[in-house]
């Protein structure tokens, strides 16, 4: 197997450990996405509020946490907060005393800052007239948000959300600096034991790739389900390979499409 940068035996032997690392990465991602999103809603409402003070606070939050590199944020939370006596003796130490607590807090804050902007953009994209139509029907503001604004905003923002999630997943590799043995940390550990510079890193990369693409496929399916109302207008004559339309059928189809437009 010379010539290949990968040692297949090592790859096979380290797979179980890498999978444990992947599981840790999945947990870190899931928890931070959950808390980040939950945090993004109130911050977004504050950001869009007509009241100056909450809007300013929310904007400051977004500017700060979008600008701050996660790595530095993690160092600050994990190593910096321990220097503050009041915090170390307070109840929040349960959270900030553990690597996991710090990692989830730092990542969630970062994700929340990005999600606030995505959410705001999507909500602003909902046409004013459609909101007015709901108001004219006497629907309450709360129900307009739940049944009209959010369903539309999700459709407008799905692509941006998907991009954020995908780059966020890859960014979670930084948690290894606070002693969490995620996928990247496991790969690095194997490198330090074997001095094989390629095998563990490439295997980890393959697992990240698989994870990210699974998420992407999930988003695609979700998006397609949401867009089912556009389905047969934009993708009307789906060319199925086993059933290629004959010229006559094709012409009839074109005729039908035309007829509908006219």
């Amino acid at each position, binding site marked *: 197997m010379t010539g290949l940068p990968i040692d297949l035996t090592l790859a096979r032997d380290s797979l179980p450990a890498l999978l444990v690392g992947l599981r840790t990465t999945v947990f870190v991602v899931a928890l931070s996405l959950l808390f980040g999103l939950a945090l993004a809603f109130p911050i977004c409402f504050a950001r869009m509020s007509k009241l100056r003070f909450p809007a300013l606070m929310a904007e400051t939050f977004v500017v700060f946490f979008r600008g701050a590199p996660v790595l530095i944020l993690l160092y600050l939370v994990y190593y910096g907060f321990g220097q503050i006596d009041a915090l170390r003796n307070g109840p929040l130490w349960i959270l900030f005393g553990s690597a996991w607590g710090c990692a989830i807090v730092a990542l969630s804050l970062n994700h929340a800052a990005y999600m606030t902007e995505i959410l705001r953009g999507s909500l602003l994209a909902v046409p004013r007239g459609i909101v007015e139509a*709901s108001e*004219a*029907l006497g629907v309450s503001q709360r129900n307009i948000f739940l049944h009209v604004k959010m369903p539309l905003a999700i459709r407008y923002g799905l692509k941006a959300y998907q991009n954020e999630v995908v780059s966020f997943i890859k960014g979670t590799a930084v948690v290894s600096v606070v002693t969490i043995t995620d996928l990247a940390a496991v790969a690095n550990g194997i490198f330090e034991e074997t001095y094989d510079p390629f095998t563990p890193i490439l295997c980890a990369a393959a697992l990240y790739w698989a994870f990210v693409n699974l998420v992407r496929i999930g988003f695609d399916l979700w998006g397609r389900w949401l867009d089912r109302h556009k389905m047969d207008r934009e993708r009307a004559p789906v060319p199925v390979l086993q059933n290629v339309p004959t010229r006559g059928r094709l012409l009839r189809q074109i005729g039908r499409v035309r007829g509908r437009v006219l």
Partner: protein
Amino acid sequence: MSALTSMPPAPLAVPADVAIALTGVEKRYGTHRALAGIDLAVGRGERIVICGPSGSGKSTLIRCINGLERHDGGRIVVNGIELTSEDGTVQDVRQEVGMVFQHFNLFPHLNALENCMLAPRLNRGLSRAQAETLAMKHLERVHLADHVRKYPGRLSGGQQQRVAIARALCMEPRILLFDEPTSALDPEWSTRCSASWRNWRRAV
């Protein structure tokens, strides 16, 4: 308005058979006066048509009547409820007033049937089945029974407008406001609509 909010105004004497009463209604956009002292009284069961050139304020007037636009002066009383700056009154008025928009504004993510079912389910707490029966009744009335599962993007302009009409009727409002009611309908449908509106006991 500020003088009015600081001291509750005396209730306007509106006869019981008047559905909509406007006195001296003003609406300004910046320096532009879109509505300049409009007086109007529409009786129950009365149908009126407001005509005017483009940009003369027809849409603005209609939008003031159901509180989509706050009037800057004068008073508006709808079914005995005066529109004030309190949110509650706007909500009360909207339960009485249905509206069909110039640009329809259907919910793009819901099909024709669901467009009509949303408000009855949310506002009046109807079950899915009840709301569906109600929506079907009104969609049949505008001859859309064959298109109820279609999404707005797949309906023609006239069909969209008829869905918008059915959607407004599903709230069974006592007053119906139409902004350009037949702009997207062909002449045959226009006459058919005006004929059927003549049979309905509705104002405006």
